[in-house]
């Protein structure tokens, strides 16, 4: 990033109340007010969002793809966390 380039913000949109927020893309903006306005103009020109989150891109933390395997590994072998692990002879659970 050069000195003049505005910081990068990741944009999340909620389509309707009750739905989860979804990553839409990113915008550049000098501050949070303009980040919100830019996000609205870029990612919701047709009512695609009823709410918006903008987050400074460098505040987002995630595992690297190299780590991802071992990072998620502890939960991969616990099939008893799924309902179809259990035998329920004859009973109707529908």
């Amino acid at each position, binding site marked *: 990033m050069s000195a003049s380039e505005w910081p990068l913000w990741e944009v999340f949109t909620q389509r309707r109340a009750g739905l989860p927020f979804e990553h839409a*893309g990113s915008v550049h903006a*000098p501050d949070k007010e303009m980040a919100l306005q830019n996000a609205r103009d870029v990612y919701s*020109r047709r009512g695609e969002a009823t709410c918006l989150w903008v987050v400074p891109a460098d505040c987002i933390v995630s595992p690297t793809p190299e780590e991802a395997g071992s990072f998620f590994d502890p939960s991969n072998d616990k099939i008893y966390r799924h309902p179809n692990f259990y035998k329920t002879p004859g009973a109707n659970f529908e």
Partner: protein
Amino acid sequence: MKILSEEELELKFQERIDKGEIIEPKDWMPERYRKQLIRMMSQHAHSEIVGMLPEGNWITRAPSLRRKAVLLAKVQDEAGHGLYIYSGTETLGISRDQVMGDFLTGKAKYSSIFNYPTLTWADIGAIGWLVDGAAIVNQTALAKGSYGPYARAMVRICKEENFHHKQGYEILATLMKGSKEQREMAQDSINRFWWPSLMMFGPSDNNSPNSAELIKWKVKKYSNDELRQRFIDRTIPQAENIGLTVPDKDLKWDEETRHYSHGEINWVEFNNVINGRGICNKERMKARRDAHENGAWVREAANAYARKKASKTKAA
């Protein structure tokens, strides 16, 4: 853990592509893949941005308030398209400043179509119907490509293009129901924009240096000629529907292939326009550079304001 060699990594990468997996920004990818995507995506984004100029030319002269509101909304969408794709390009590790810099110095290219002038109001119809029509065919294919951020930007764009496409057709359909002069104006516009629209799909397959690699990596799913054919097949019936003809005396329906066959494309013209010798190349680049330079004080002022506010919050 075993450290994989470059070749092994590349093999694994190709396996992922062949299985139809989607590549995300932090995944390992060959340097060529990254470079090709940066080239293609930034070129695409620049085209969206330059594309605003020929249409912007008619905003103040739109024939009615309805047409003016529509054209404004369409041009604003194109700015949005540019920004979706710039944002996607940055996920490949190149800064916005660098991408813009390559554009303004003329190092990066943009679609040849926007170097043609918009001489009459009918050209706004022709652009929406033909140019956005061609863009839809292209972008629908790109939406299934292997790089996640690019494909997702395409999905977003495709949702908006149908409006662009139809408003252009409506303009032409209205002119074709008008006076003799209006009908001639519509036809003249198609005569000028038809061939350049076909060129938008790029060189013929046997002459497209990047195609094979891009198809191997599923950045592209179809060849230039296939997409061009798809565009022609769906556009000709729409033209006939309102009494327009296309300026190709060799165009005919082939009952055997169930496709239209068309005449030879003037690739000399295409190469001239791509290499800076089109009618409006200089004008377009000047408009972009002026906009960038004249906007510099706004960017600086906004930065200064943000810094001032931040230091106040710290002091408080």
